[in-house]
């Protein structure tokens, strides 16, 4: 299985630790990902601003970069959603179709492709999960409150399986944080207010570590946490799992093989230095 690691532009430049955690976490789960160095961005910033035409060269560059992999994995549901949903405006060559189908959010990949729904390790903190709208409503990685009262999803399941970790019960489980790409600049007042309200919900309900699968939401929320000097740490979920797995006594994890029989096998967890 050839896995290409897509580290979105803003993570590459401003949150390298999230890229590193993603790479190491995959490695611990037995996946040696490759990072093609000519990669840049998925093109979403332009397209969401109404400049889809300008984004097309970026789409083609993305496809050229990643079409040789079986899977493309990124620690950002929003970018993945963009590739899957909005790369419909370039010619649908075999390469484009392949890339659209095989680009996965990290936790969707871990859950759906690797078949891992529980992880060993310890992280003794109260963790507040911020659901990214594109991951949740776009990629269906979690239940939506518009449809059902059951609060369940890929990431909350993985987090709950970590020893010592308690999940915050929020007043509003899946309200948008207000980042929204260039929205955070053009609608600064609404964006900031939405972010402040989200952070407040976590603060009121005891979150010590604020996490999520999408670093763009977290960048915005972290900006507010740091401005207000709130007693809360912001970490991408890949960082939590990577840290939790570091001290693991267990050496293997049960992985589903995605075959018709639902077979599973024990895979060794590689411990990194």
């Amino acid at each position, binding site marked *: 299985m050839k896995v290409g690691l897509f580290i979105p532009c803003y993570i590459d430049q401003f949150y390298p630790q999230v890229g590193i955690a993603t*790479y190491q976490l995959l490695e611990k789960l037995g996946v040696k990902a490759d990072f093609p160095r000519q990669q840049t961005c998925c093109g979403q910033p332009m397209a969401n*601003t109404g400049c*889809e035409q300008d984004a097309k060269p970026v789409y083609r560059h993305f496809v050229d970069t990643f079409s040789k992999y079986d899977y493309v994995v990124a620690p950002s549901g929003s970018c993945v959603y963009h590739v899957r949903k909005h790369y419909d405006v370039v010619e649908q060559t075999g390469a484009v179709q392949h890339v659209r189908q095989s680009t996965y959010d990290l936790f969707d990949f871990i859950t759906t492709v690797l078949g891992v729904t529980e992880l060993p390790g310890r992280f003794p903190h109260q963790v507040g999960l911020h659901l990214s709208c594109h991951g949740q409503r776009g990629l269906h990685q979690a239940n939506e409150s*518009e449809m059902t009262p059951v609060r369940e999803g890929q990431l909350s399941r993985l987090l709950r399986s970590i020893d010592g970790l308690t999940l915050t019960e929020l007043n509003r489980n899946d309200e948008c944080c207000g980042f929204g790409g*260039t929205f955070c600049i053009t609608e600064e007042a609404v964006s900031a207010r939405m972010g402040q309200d989200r952070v407040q919900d976590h603060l009121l309900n005891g979150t010590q570590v604020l996490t999520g699968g999408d670093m763009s939401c977290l960048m915005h929320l972290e900006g507010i946490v*740091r401005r207000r000097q709130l007693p809360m740490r912001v970490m991408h979920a890949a960082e939590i799992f990577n840290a939790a797995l570091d001290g693991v006594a267990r050496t293997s994890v049960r992985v589903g093989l995605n075959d018709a029989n639902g077979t599973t096998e024990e895979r060794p967890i590689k411990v990194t230095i």
Partner: protein
Amino acid sequence: MSHPQRAAAFISDAERTTWHDETLWFVRQKRDKAVYGIPEFQQLRQLASDIKAHTLSRLDEYLEQFERNAQANGVTVHWAADAAEHNRIVLELIRKAGATSLVKSKSMLTEECHLNPYLVKNGIAVVDTDLGERIVQLREEAPSHLVLPAIHLKKEDVGETFHLHLGTPKGEKDPQQLTEAARQHLREKFLIGEVAITGVNFAVAETGAVVVCTNEGNADLGVNLARVHIACMGMEKLIPRTADLGVFTRLLARSATGQPVTTYTSHFARPAEGREMHIVIVDNGRTRQLGRPDFRNSLKCIRCGACMNTCPVYRRSGGHSYDFTVPGPIGAILSPNIDLHKHSSLPFASTLCGSCTDVCPVKIDIHAQLYKWRQLIGEQGELPATKKLGMKLLSSVLARPGIYRLGGKVAREGLRFLPHGLTHAQALNPWAKARELPAAPKQSFRDWYAAQVK
């Protein structure tokens, strides 16, 4: 003024913003509770969406069928191509009836056509009889919500308005007292109303009847006391059969307020003995929207307001920030069809979170249409020059890995070494008004990868 400017003005009153957000979130939660209780709710949404899709695909046939059946019932049917023609038709009917005053139950279409100011200018006294509508009418404001027109006002505001216009004691803010004052005031108006105007929630093609859903019974009272009933409807209000109605009434009130059904679901099929009934069918841009495949679905809207209650932007910016008859997410996809230039900031008044699409009882892909309007606005040169230029520049950087690497390094180094006061100057950097920028690392991920992984 654009949406961001009006929204910022609304948000500057932090306490009122909190109250507005929480009030509408409460309605959203009531909606959730009602929805969770219906196991087949998602099937109902699909069915409603399909019925509307079918109806829109044969709108011409159904409109003519509706007209024939309404005429057979003794109703006069009028056609209006636009708002101006609609207003002229209504005025003419009022004059023909020799009337100088009328009562009106809730109708977003007449708001859309700006009927009230037109009639007032022509010497007709108009009284909106829906309580919320009456409040905003007295204040000379536009409704700020489809279903809850005065939701931007607190009871203290209403008390002040009623003190000024209805003579309630100064400082009276008890909802019961205020409602009673409105009731007495409206009774008088109902009794002297010669003409009653209603909106239309559904028009049934096979019977020629119109259906009006209210919680206050004001449509019934108005129509039954007046000599002439004028029902004004957008041409997309049709459903084929009476049997289809149940699908929509089950969805409408649950989505709007969390009620199982509106208090009154009134069917108006024919005029009573010695009275008149008219139906005015209005296009006003709907045919144009029908001709846009990407946006056709927006005509399925049954005006429940659920997308407003769920929209985190609407809840924090208020209905007036949209400056369009229909505010919120649905307004943001309807308004560019009417005037792309004037409303070009509305499709951007969204994070594209998709919650609107998920609550929509007729499954309009609202957030996908917002995205598509953005592209059209970009193509038609309606984006601010800075945005357009910035995106062109960004695109040329992101299509060239070498320039991207260099640009990223320059940005990081800049953040690391420039003074905080400069990088966070609020005049230059809107992000920094309420947020810190990320702490720039020395090394990018790709630098790390190059050093670690051979």
